[in-house]
């Protein structure tokens, strides 16, 4: 009798908090959506959206940020997966040091980091700010550093779930060299971990403001900030569009990263 009463109470509270969380998340979005549809006084209209879509700077900035997001994911994976793999296999004693390094982006504000980039790479001998392409390289490096805590941790968690040593040795006993082990065995078994890191990485890049603003690149964050200074309804429409496009992009990433029928996998540990 007591147990069933308790379970009813638990269910009631769980329902309450779920609804509260959903409201907390969706009410502001609904408010923004509603506001974005009120550009024409007294009626619901899509005029704000039409203005945003007709602005070539919006598509340019979204394309730029999305492309930088994808490139950041690819480069981050190519850097962090082999690094974490090697640490697990050969250098487990330096893991604590590496973990401290990967949380530095949480401690050092982005503005400080950007000023450091400009000071270091804004003049010879390492000048990288004179052309858009070279500045994009700086942007990419910046995005990799900012998303490093998320990507590293996602891969680290993934590595813990597989028997890295045994799988490596099994592959080596079958004739694989290090590259073959990495690409045939390690990468495929980290797909879920890489995907989760990639999603956070992509969202971070899409929403990032300071790097793009100070390095004067057409990223989505600075564009949204500049629109917000001079317009009212268009920023709301832009927010909704950004949400939708970002979620669609994440969906594409998930779709193309999802493998056949592997489902839950065990390593026989």
């Amino acid at each position, binding site marked *: 009798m007591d147990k069933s009463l308790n379970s009813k109470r638990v269910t009631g509270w769980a329902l309450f908090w779920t609804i509260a969380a959903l409201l907390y998340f969706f009410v502001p979005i609904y408010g923004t959506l509603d506001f974005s549809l009120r550009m024409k006084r007294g009626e619901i209209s899509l005029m704000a959206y039409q203005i945003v879509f007709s602005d070539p700077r919006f598509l340019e900035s979204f394309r730029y940020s999305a492309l930088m997001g994808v490139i950041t994911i690819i480069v981050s994976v190519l850097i962090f997966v082999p690094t974490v793999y090697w640490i697990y296999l050969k250098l487990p004693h330096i893991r604590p040091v590496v973990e401290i390094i990967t949380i530095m982006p949480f401690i050092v504000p982005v503005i400080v980091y950007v000023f450091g980039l400009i000071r270091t790479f804004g003049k010879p001998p390492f000048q990288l700010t004179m052309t858009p392409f070279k500045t994009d390289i700086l942007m990419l490096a910046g995005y990799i550093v900012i998303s490093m805590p998320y990507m590293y941790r996602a891969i680290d968690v993934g590595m813990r779930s597989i028997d890295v040593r045994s799988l490596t040795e099994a592959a080596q006993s079958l004739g694989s060299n290090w590259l073959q082990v990495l690409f045939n065995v390690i990468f495929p078994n980290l797909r879920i971990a890489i995907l989760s890191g990639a999603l956070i990485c992509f969202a971070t890049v899409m929403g990032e403001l300071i790097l793009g603003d100070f390095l004067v690149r057409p990223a989505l964050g600075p564009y949204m900030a500049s629109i917000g200074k001079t317009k009212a309804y268009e920023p709301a429409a832009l927010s909704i569009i950004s949400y939708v496009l970002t979620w669609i992009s994440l969906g594409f990433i998930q779709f193309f990263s999802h493998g056949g029928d592997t489902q839950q996998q065990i*390593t026989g540990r």
Partner: protein
Amino acid sequence: MSFLQLTNINKKFGSTAAVDNFNLAVEQGEFISFLGPSGCGKTTTLRMIAGFEYPTSGSITLQGNDLTFTPPNKRNIGMVFQSYALFPNMTVAQNIGYGLKIARKSKEAIEARIEELLTLIHMENMGARYPYQLSGGQQQRVALARALAIQPQVLLLDEPLSALDAKIRVELRHEIRRIQQQLDITTIYVTHDQEEALSLSDRIVVMNQGGMEQVGTPDQIYNFPETEFVARFVGQINLLPVEVVNPRDGVIKIGDHLLRAGRFGKLNGKPVRLAIRPEELHPGYLEGSNNLSGKVGSITYLGSIIRIRVDVDGNPVSLDVFNERKFKPPSVGETYQVNFPVEASWLI
């Protein structure tokens, strides 16, 4: 020259000697077991043969070629791991064919070899399954097939059955031996299970604290152990402190019992003990045999065996008798006589 030769192999981790002066010559087609307790160096030695560790000193040669510092992917030595180590992202067929794919064999050759091995391990219709869809025993069969697919010169197995339940272990070890004999592949098998080692091997290497205690056939290891460790580790053993009466003839005394040891070597006044296996002791008095008597301390039922412990002048002596219906076990506290053949005992 032997097929596989390990010469003066030493392995140190820091100041700890994990393997100490290991020497072994293995002939082609032999099934050798490394048997010993945890931490004795058997897996470290196996890993040095596989190439996952390099010896601190010594050499490993295979068919006359020095493999000591050859990388593992260049040795053509197959290995089956305790954790199976199947690739979770690949099907059974892909796992088995992986080594052949790395060796750039043709698609037809790979498919034919996969079919052949699936038949060998009796898993013909399971090529499309993933490891998570298999039982432990099935996973281990696939791991074995994968190691054999590349036609290795030597097959290494590192406690492959330890994660399985007892009944599957017995089935699979017969399977492993059948396949090994069918393919005539030189095999080294690491285990801490003496029953596995005794039932599978042509020869056994008993190891302890990094060193080799004894190398011999199962019969030699069990019936003629050369050290106390081997006698204790392999099978059950009674060790009774004795007083030497006649060192030339091996006549000894336990309390008031005058006995003769079957094997005794040179006795030079050092404390010795009489070793006798429990199954060599029989109930009752027998003329011409060694005879002991004492009080029954305990009776333990082990299924097909009953183990009776008799206290002989303060020394526990265990005898194993078959649990036959006609056998009437004694009562605890009862005075009980036991006998054993002279040749079944020896002095350590």
